[in-house]
């Protein structure tokens, strides 16, 4: 019987071993793409994730165990480190075991606010400022989360749009101040 030990390539580095369920979560969260290479003992060679049918089958939801070890992203050098069992299963962990990866709501909010900030003409800051705040909060939350959380790319996009919006806002304020100070337009009485 083949071991449930999978290896995957990420940023040119081999990672693993990891279990099938954990690999599915990596794919669902976007940390691995369909083109990412995976391998398990028994496979002839590394293959793209899209070619491995097991990764796309619906996971079987077993009874929630009373003790489960947390997911580890181990490199070959650290794969021998023991993982202590967790006595209670948190709701987030249950959701993860069912293959549901949360997407950061802050990341979504950052992107939406960033887009609105660019569209808001001369009041860009109304959208841009929340975009920047939510973007940084989302990135920190994703980085500190013990379980995988999707939304990093979205948060970065929201940050970029937010900073662009702030740049436009600063620019238009500077133009207005310049125009008034040089009496290019009449000041109100």
């Amino acid at each position, binding site marked *: 019987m083949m071991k449930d030990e999978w290896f995957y390539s990420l940023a040119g580095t081999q990672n693993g071993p990891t279990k099938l369920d954990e690999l599915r979560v990596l794919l*669902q*969260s*976007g940390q691995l*793409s369909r083109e990412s290479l995976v391998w398990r003992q028994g496979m002839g060679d590394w293959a793209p994730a899209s070619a491995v049918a097991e990764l796309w089958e619906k996971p079987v939801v077993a009874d929630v165990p009373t003790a489960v070890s947390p997911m580890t992203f181990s490199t070959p050098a650290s794969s021998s480190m023991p993982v202590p069992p967790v006595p209670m299963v948190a*709701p987030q962990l*249950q*959701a993860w075991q*069912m293959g*549901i*990866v*949360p*997407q*950061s*709501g802050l990341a*979504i*909010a950052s992107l*939406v606010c960033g*887009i609105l900030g*660019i*569209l*808001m*003409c*001369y009041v860009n800051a109304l959208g841009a400022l929340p975009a920047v705040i939510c973007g940084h909060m989302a990135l920190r939350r994703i980085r500190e989360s013990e379980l995988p959380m*999707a*939304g990093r*790319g*979205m948060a*970065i*996009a929201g940050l*970029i*749009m937010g900073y*662009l919006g702030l740049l*436009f806002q600063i620019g*238009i304020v500077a*133009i*207005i101040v310049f*125009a008034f100070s040089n009496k290019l*337009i009449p000041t109100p009485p």
Partner: protein
Amino acid sequence: MVRRSRPWTVLTVVILVVTTVVFCTQSLLFAIMPECQFHRFTGWHCPGCGARRAIMLMARGEWWQALRMNALLLLGGLVCLILLLRQVLLEWRKGGAVLPWRRRHTVLLVSLFLGFGILRNIPVAPFTWLAPLPLR
């Protein structure tokens, strides 16, 4: 029981409420909003210029004219609406919906906005079609 968060559903509801309020109160809202100060001081059109006119024309049912005012708002809004509906359906059917977001999507988004903002200011056809017209 696992409590599921549904951020896409929350976002869609917020957008629907805000859109409804804007459409219902647009004559009051737009009467108190000053003209675009960026256009006033530079003579250029920012990516958002024409959005107010586009919303007013959409409310009148003049969709083609609304597209002329701000094509990015209408076409981008349509794409966003389709994506939102997809995400909401997935959230309720499968319990969760992750919208895959890669680096190329960020590049595309930023390029689209900046490109639209630059192209609509080129005073040569066909780019002049992207610039908004005064509302009659």
